[in-house]
């Protein structure tokens, strides 16, 4: 009796096909919000979009690249300042500074990587924090950008986006939506590519991936540069909504703290995790806004508890229990056995 079996690799799942349809419907709804939504809802959604995009980028760094950075605010603040420099002093259209800040952020991440990649493991984390402090202290010294007290975006620059307030707010909303969609799509495609396979291998075991010929350093560097690109672009976007920048606000560690809690609680090392984490973060924020630091204490202890008891996070628990995968980046082996 000969067993001839047919094997194939399956990637999409029933949920992922359903998810794709839902995703397209959701995207259409989000695109249409400026036509029917209120100003407050749009404002909140812009914040949700950029926090989610930051969370996805940090998750890519830490969850896949094993690069636990607590200094991403270096690139966020840098991007914010690029908005001010290029829109005020060079005359670049404010919206165009978003991609420009991304490119410059990617460029500045090269010398930063040269420094922090010398630090292994745990010390890498604190090294990135030092770099963020250095960025803050340097920008605080630049008098043309308002020094330590910061600067406001002139009315002329704001007007140049669009003359009417509603068009301006809609434009910023769509830019924010475009940024978060682009970040998620690029990360999804990256993880499905052979680079993603390399990253997943590194996440699971650095030694084993190296033994299989993965260039760990190159893969990590690529992820680091891409995260810097995205984070700096988002920085420009954030300060385009805030219209005011100061070194303390731009290079605030809380940007990274928020994102870390979101990713850890939602589920590190998955694309769905940061989405769940962001939803939870914003759902809890409104009712707990009056409790100030108790909210951070709650988030911090929840993150600690999850790291200790269920390190795969809330999404990890859900997907394990129900076998759900909306963003299938893993490959599953299927086979049929023919008995002849």
């Amino acid at each position: 009796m000969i067993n001839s079996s047919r094997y194939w690799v399956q990637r999409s799942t029933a949920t992922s096909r359903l998810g794709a349809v839902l995703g397209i419907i959701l995207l259409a709804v989000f695109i249409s919000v400026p036509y029917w939504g209120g100003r407050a809802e749009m404002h909140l959604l812009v914040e949700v979009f950029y926090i989610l995009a930051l969370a996805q980028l940090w998750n890519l760094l830490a969850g896949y690249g094993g690069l636990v950075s607590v200094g991403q605010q270096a690139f966020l603040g840098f991007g914010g300042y690029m908005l001010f420099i290029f829109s005020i002093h060079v005359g670049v259209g404010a919206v165009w500074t978003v991609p420009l800040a991304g490119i410059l952020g990617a460029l500045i991440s090269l010398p930063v990587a040269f420094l922090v990649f010398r630090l292994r493991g745990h010390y890498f984390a604190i090294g990135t924090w030092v770099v963020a402090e250095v960025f803050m202290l340097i920008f605080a010294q630049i008098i043309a950008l308002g020094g330590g007290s910061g600067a406001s975006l002139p009315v002329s620059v704001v007007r140049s986006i669009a003359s009417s307030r509603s068009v301006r707010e809609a434009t910023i909303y769509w830019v924010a939506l475009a940024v978060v969609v682009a970040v998620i799509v690029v990360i999804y495609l990256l993880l499905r590519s052979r680079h993603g396979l390399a990253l997943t291998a590194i996440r699971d075991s650095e030694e084993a991936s190296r033994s299989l010929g993965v260039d760990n350093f190159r893969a990590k560097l690529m992820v680091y540069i891409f995260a810097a690109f995205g984070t700096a672009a988002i920085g420009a976007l954030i300060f385009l909504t805030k219209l005011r920048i100061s070194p303390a606000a731009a290079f605030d560690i809380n940007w990274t703290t928020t994102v870390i809690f979101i990713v850890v609680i939602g589920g590190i090392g998955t694309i769905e995790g940061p989405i769940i984490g962001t939803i939870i973060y914003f759902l809890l924020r409104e009712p707990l806004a009056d409790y100030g630091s108790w909210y951070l204490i709650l988030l911090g202890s929840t993150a600690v508890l999850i790291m200790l008891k269920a390190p795969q996070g809330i999404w990890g628990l859900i997907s394990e229990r129900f076998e759900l995968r909306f963003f299938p980046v893993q490959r599953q082996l299927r086979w049929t056995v023919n008995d002849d």
Partner: protein
Amino acid sequence: MIEWVNIVLQGILTGGLYALFAAGLAIIFGVMRLVNITHGDLIVLSAFVAMVAIDVIGFNPFISLVVVLPIMFVFGYILQRSILNFTLGDDLLPPLLVTFGLSIVIQNLLLQIFSADSQRIKAGSLEILSIQLYENLSVGVFPLIVFIVAVFIIIGLQYLFSNTRIGRAFRATSDDAVTAQLMGINDRHIFSLSMALALLVVGIAGLFVGISTNFDPSAGPSRLLFAFEAVIMGGLGSLWGTLAGGIILGVSQNIGAKLDPGWQILAGHIAFLIILVFRPNGLFPRMRDD
């Protein structure tokens, strides 16, 4: 000329305080390869404990250590035994993210209890006493005490690690926890003791930092960064290295402050980055960093 001698001298004395910050971090990294992001917040926590103890007892700040040190020792042991031991392993994420989360929790609890007001521990005349070394050159008595205490603590820790039973247990567990267990050492207990020991040093550092500068609940992270920079500049795992690293940091900050007040902290960070480029393993490397 004498002005620069003065600047360097004051920097060296500040370096003693930074070495105290760093020694605690070096101990726990040395024994269990754990990098504790709450380290700075624990220094600030102990400054607050000292402040409360002084307010309650009501006399000399140094006596407050009788209360502060046992509290920090027990707190360190419980922290390690009940939480941090469960994060140790091959995966880098749990220890980093757990200590990061704890850091935010401690900062915000301190904020709730003590408010965001800047605090300072009063040490009476000790704050202003100084010794005239030369014309226009004098050193404060308190910074000198801090420096001398730091040197003695490092000598003591060095002795403890090389010549005592518990020191051997620390080193054995650090080298190979599994084999150490076979020899009858309880590695969980040893890890917890090393954290308790680190927090004794933190307790002393907290009192000193409370006397020498203003502090508030958000002051922890910058202490962590100074400690970290001193450890890396000195060379991982070397206790004397932390003193060297602390001194480099203190001197470069003082030189930076002399050039421009806004450059004080930046100059320290830049000195760290320069050493990172040219001597990535620090000046006195002892242990492999993995």
